[in-house]
């Protein structure tokens, strides 16, 4: 190599500064491409961590027992629907508490009923729950107390209402200690749930909580929607899962008719979905990088014809094929790396803005996406400058010099 890399850079820099509008145009295209890759993947990663966080708030030691057996096991839509060959009962739930590895068990009943007070009526999701539910779901009470610690099969006319339900039924009046009507029964409000703590599947603020036995009476059923089991540690999860299945099998006359879902299985599925989304969105953004590459090719072609005389001169001064090539490829590389850096800064600033605007979404671009964006930017820059550079190198010096 007769030409120093540093000289190529210096020369390229001079050329860029010499034609600022051209350089800015290419810089813009490159930086938009890189910025969109960075921001979109940041968004995807943010969504992923958001979902992860949601599940973590649910407790990773959590097992969900659903009536009905899905033959393949794992997580599938039918297991969520919960078909019921044999009902889960409060006695089943009670039986699950008899292992040391089980920290908490929460039987659950869900239904919908009219909640009314002084002529205001609202159709609301009713959750039949127990005292332990609060700790198990990491919920927090805003005012008053959660459901009392009583025997599960004991009904009691007390209720905890979500803050939105309170607003709609009580307005500015105090709600604690007041009575309201759920279906055809009267309940006394003992607590109010705020939005503190997050929860998937349940809008904490729009739900009304009553003791599980009361819910069974209200909906006239003896079965449970599902049972949540919290293991004492992550390591004991497989053992607890086996224990649950075995216990319930014994209680159900030897039929394996329940499904146990671990949080991990659900999380993994969401993780996969969001991961695929992130990849595809990042891929779409990478296409804009290719477009930027094509723009670079066009602008470089214009540059070659603009600077024909200069190329002729360089040849007359003894520049060979390789030197002309490296001058133009170097120029494109310099441009695309500047564009990539500018794009990275814009993308990171955009992600920062996203994080400011949506604090729940930790939008940080993953390292692989940043590396890939930079790599693709440089790659397209080099690739798409090859054609113009070759054209420049192949110019006939005599004709090139005679052009002014």
């Amino acid at each position, binding site marked *: 190599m007769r030409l120093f890399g540093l000289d190529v850079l210096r*020369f390229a820099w001079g*050329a860029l500064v*010499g034609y600022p509008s051209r350089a800015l145009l290419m810089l813009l295209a490159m930086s938009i491409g890189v910025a969109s890759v960075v921001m979109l993947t940041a968004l995807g990663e943010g969504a992923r961590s958001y979902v992860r966080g949601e599940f973590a708030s649910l407790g990773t030691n959590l097992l969900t027992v659903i009536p009905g057996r899905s033959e393949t096991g794992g997580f599938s839509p039918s297991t969520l629907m919960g078909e019921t060959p044999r009902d889960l009962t409060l006695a089943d739930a009670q039986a699950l508490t008899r292992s040391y590895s089980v920290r908490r068990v929460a039987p659950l009943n869900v239904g919908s009923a009219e909640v009314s007070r002084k002529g205001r009526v609202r159709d609301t999701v009713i959750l039949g729950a127990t005292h332990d539910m609060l700790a198990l779901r990491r919920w927090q009470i805003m005012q008053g107390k959660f459901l009392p610690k009583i025997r599960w099969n004991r009904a009691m006319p007390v209720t905890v209402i979500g803050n939105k339900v309170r607003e709609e039924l009580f307005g500015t009046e105090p709600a604690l200690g007041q009575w309201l009507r759920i279906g055809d029964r009267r309940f006394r409000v003992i607590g109010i749930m705020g939005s503190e703590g997050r929860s998937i599947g349940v809008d904490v603020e729009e739900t009304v909580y009553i003791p599980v036995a009361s819910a069974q009476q209200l909906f006239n059923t003896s079965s449970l929607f599902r049972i949540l089991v919290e293991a004492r540690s992550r390591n004991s999860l497989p053992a607890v899962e086996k224990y649950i299945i075995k216990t319930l099998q014994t209680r159900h006359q030897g039929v394996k008719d329940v499904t146990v879902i671990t949080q991990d299985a659900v999380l993994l599925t969401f993780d996969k979905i969001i991961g695929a989304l992130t990849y595809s969105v990042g891929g779409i953004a990478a296409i804009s990088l290719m477009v930027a590459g094509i723009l670079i090719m066009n602008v470089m072609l214009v540059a070659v014809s603009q600077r024909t005389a200069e190329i002729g001169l*360089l040849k*007359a001064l003894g*520049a060979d*094929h390789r*030197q002309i090539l490296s001058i133009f490829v170097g120029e494109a590389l310099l441009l695309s790396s500047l564009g990539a850096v500018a794009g990275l800064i814009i993308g990171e600033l955009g992600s920062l803005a996203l994080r400011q605007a949506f604090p729940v979404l930790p939008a940080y671009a993953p390292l692989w996406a940043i590396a890939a964006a930079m790599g693709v930017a440089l790659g397209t820059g080099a690739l798409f400058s090859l054609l113009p550079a070759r054209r420049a190198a192949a110019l006939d010096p*005599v004709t090139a010099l005679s052009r002014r």
Partner: protein
Amino acid sequence: MPVIQLQQIHRDFQVGDQVVHALDDINLQIDAGDYLSIMGPSGSGKSTLLNLIGLLDRATSGHYILNGQDVTVLSDTEQATTRNKTIGFVFQSFHLVPRLSAAANVELPLMLAGMSVEERRSKVAKALEALHLSDRAEHKPDQLSGGQRQRVAIARATVTEPAVLLADEPTGNLDRKSGLDVMGILEALNDRGITLIVVTHDAELGQRARRQLHMLDGRIHREEQEG
């Protein structure tokens, strides 16, 4: 000792379905330190001959021996290296890179030669000084007069200390006074041993050379030589 030997050089161009003989059986020998002018009307082949001597163009047939080496058989890259080392060009329209300072323009051939930065700097300074351009080193071409631009171009052509200096209508874009000034500089370089070849259609200018070639239709029509 001849620095340039041309043996039965032909250069044909295809124009449409016609073959134009731009150079037609040229035989020429130029000694080191010679001062040669090539004259003739436009289309006579004088520029083609200069480009061929400058290795910017290749002969269709014949041999070109430069410094004892047959350069017609060299590859493009080898020719580029030879051009860089042994030939300096001065053009009618100067061909300075507009965005580069005078010093950076002069530095170009040294950069292409892969010379170290320190070595370049001292050579460029010397070349500029020799042409009384030291105070113009950081000026851009558009801040220089025509005569100054051509002097920068001459500094660039001579900074590599080439054996041969080729000038294609070097005064064509200059007023008379700057033109004479530039010719004086070129001739002073020739006095110090460089082989100078000037292409011009200006008879007065051409007659300053010791050897004068008159070209017509691709052939050397007439040659005059002083003492």
